[in-house]
């Protein structure tokens, strides 16, 4: 507990020293709140066509007091869609990141602690998997699995688990011969105990930074897949798909592109700034991309 308090104080001090990290954290929190509460505060359902009093659909209205982000070519309120869409992108990327980090941590800890031929084989397997560009692998996997939210999560987990595992493995390698690990082993503790009670706390800094980075990349990948039409299906307010749909209409309703694209950029930047702050707190520089 004392260590955690110390870290928190250090983190706050760095926040004050680095306003960008502070801004990043605030924005990230706001985005998470948007994902949680957005649908409750959105003025319209994400798929509703806004109509005038005569029942005519009001399409391509520029941003105004009534429609903060304007309406799109089908007369849907873009502000509402962006609010609703935060849940999709943060939810999918968050779930995928959580699963990747969980699986990657378990595999990485086991490989780093055990070593030997299993470590060699699995590490080389991961290396070969990571040698394939992420987007190519994602497209191939989605072509096989079909485009659905579950498939997107599965693809991101498949892509990011090896990366997390590699980072955690290298961190665990340095800890397996530490004195307190040796003592635990001599005490006759089980492997699970050693991994999760002795080694895991030592790799937490690396894990926190890696998790934040993976989350940022997962957001970008989810949005990219949505843009390519491989994300969630219409009329879902997936930000990537919104960018794709607004692209053709850019000359007539550019605001349709500005806000979802801006939201993706802002979210990714915020998470990256937060990750950067975490890295400085933990003085951790070992992350891989």
């Amino acid at each position, binding site marked *: 507990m004392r260590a955690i308090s110390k870290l928190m104080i250090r983190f706050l001090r760095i926040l004050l020293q680095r306003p960008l990290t502070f801004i990043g954290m605030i924005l990230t929190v706001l985005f998470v709140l948007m994902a949680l509460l957005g649908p409750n505060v959105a003025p319209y359902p994400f798929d509703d066509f806004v109509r005038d009093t005569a029942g005519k*659909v009001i399409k391509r209205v520029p941003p105004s007091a009534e429609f903060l982000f304007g309406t799109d070519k*089908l007369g849907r309120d873009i502000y509402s869609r962006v609010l609703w869409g935060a849940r999709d992108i943060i939810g999918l990327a968050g779930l995928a990141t959580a699963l990747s980090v969980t699986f990657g941590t378990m595999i990485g800890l086991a490989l780093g602690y055990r070593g030997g031929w299993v470590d060699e084989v699995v590490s080389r397997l991961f290396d070969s998997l990571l040698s394939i560009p992420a987007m190519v692998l994602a497209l191939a996997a989605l072509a096989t699995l079909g485009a659905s939210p579950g498939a997107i999560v599965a693809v991101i987990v498949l892509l990011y688990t090896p990366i997390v595992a590699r980072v955690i493995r290298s961190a665990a390698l340095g800890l397996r011969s530490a004195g307190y690990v040796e003592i635990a082993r001599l005490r006759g503790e089980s492997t699970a105990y050693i991994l999760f009670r002795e080694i895991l706390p030592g790799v937490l800094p690396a894990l926190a930074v890696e998790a934040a980075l993976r989350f940022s990349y997962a957001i970008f990948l989810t949005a990219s897949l949505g843009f390519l039409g491989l994300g969630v299906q219409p009329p879902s307010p997936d930000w990537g798909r919104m960018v794709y749909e607004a692209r*053709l209409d850019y000359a007539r309703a550019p605001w349709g592109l500005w806000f979802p694209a801006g939201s993706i950029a802002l979210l990714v930047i915020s998470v990256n700034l937060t990750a950067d702050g975490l890295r400085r707190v933990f003085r951790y520089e070992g992350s891989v991309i």
Partner: protein
Amino acid sequence: MAFSAPRTPRTLTVMLVIMACLLGLTALPAHAQGGTLTIGTNAPVNLDPALGSNDPEILFNHMIYDYLFDVSVTNEIVPNLANGYGISEDGLTYTISLLPEVWFHDGTTFDSADVLATFNRLVTIESPALGLLSGGDFTIAAPDATTVVFTLTAPNADFIYGLAGRLAFMLSEEVVEPNVLIEGDGALANFNGTGPFVLTEYKPGESATFVRNEIYHASDNVLLDEVVHVYIEDPLAQIDALTSGAVDFIFKVPVDQVGVLTDAGVNVLSVPTNQHPVIRIRTAEGFRGEDVRIRQALKLGIDRDELNELALDGLGTVGNNDPIGPLYGNYYAPIAQSYDPEAACALILEATGEERISFDFYVVDALGYPDLATIMQQQWEAACIDVNILVRPENVYYGDNEWLDQELGLTGWGSRPIPQQYLLEAYITGALYNESNFSDADVDALTAEATLTVDPSARAAIYQQIAAAFAERGAIIVPFFAPMIGATSTRVQGLNMNPFPGLTDLRGVSVSE
């Protein structure tokens, strides 16, 4: 008494200058002739004249090759390499006379042997062109160099349209592999047609350059000196290329870009076509569409006017529930369509005993159809119909034949010169592309009767009966017929875009420098 003032030298000078100017102006043509037309288009993939069927492919081949007959922008038959034809009384023999002085680009003479070679090749390689050519069930003879005789085993009122089919380009009998690039010298020797332009350079995926055919049989009609095809895959990039002056003509522009083109000050071309989306439900045994009440509920739940307004900015023509659109004149029978979600709900309750019904709705990702599906989803929701939209890339939807297997789907159908093609390809029992599995004895019999009926008014009566059958019990919804949008720079004159843009006749086109 007439009085004329004495003219001073200064007045005379002014008059002379004015006269010189007037003479100079009248000496100029009404519009500048010749020039280079640069077309921004997608790249052709299959260059085989008998197989490559999409717009870029037809556009490419239409530069090099001629047809026996052309189909005009109003879908009329116009002789080209043929100068006339006769049909026997029993409708089984077509005698085609050919123009006598026609040459291929290499200087060899075009004659009936080339026509025989062309149609025999269509049969050999089982070209889709055979669809209107009685499936290839004909014999062909050449009594002399300028006469060709086709003999059918059964009458086919559309046979002449088959001879004018998009893939029936006249090839030289001496070219074994048409449009195949040769390594080394004479790389373009296999691109040897009688058409108005000669291919001089071809860079696959990049560009193609054509120059005027100086030995063209109607050389006076060809005004352009050169035509360049620049291959641009992205429709927005095509628009940018046009508005920046890099190209002079683009086609198949998304309908929602019309405003952009108008604002840019280019000439917007809008041609009515029979291109339409088809929303179809499977009627095979065991599927819910087997019940005509479900089909009717789907139709009643659609507000066609709003679909046209939202999906096409009101530029389309609202359709019936059959594939025969207003483009076909008297063959089209306007039928009043009603939007009645309450009646739809009542039909669903009656047919299923449930308050609502739900479907997976497979949609091809093309031509803005995902947007169309989104609008329909909203409209159907009020009609007690819930759909889960599943957008599929074109290569998956068509490539894996998914479109023929799903219960509820949205498919795009391009324009055809005659309505009979739709009926034969997709709506008679057992048709190759009968995606709804629709089987109706009356429609089958009426379609067969139309095949044999040459008289236009009798045919119109048949098509109106078919339209009524579709409205009453058909398995498809045709919400609208979309226009074909193209655009030219202001330098282009005389370009009349064909409803199938690849067939646009460039012979009378000129570009001012």
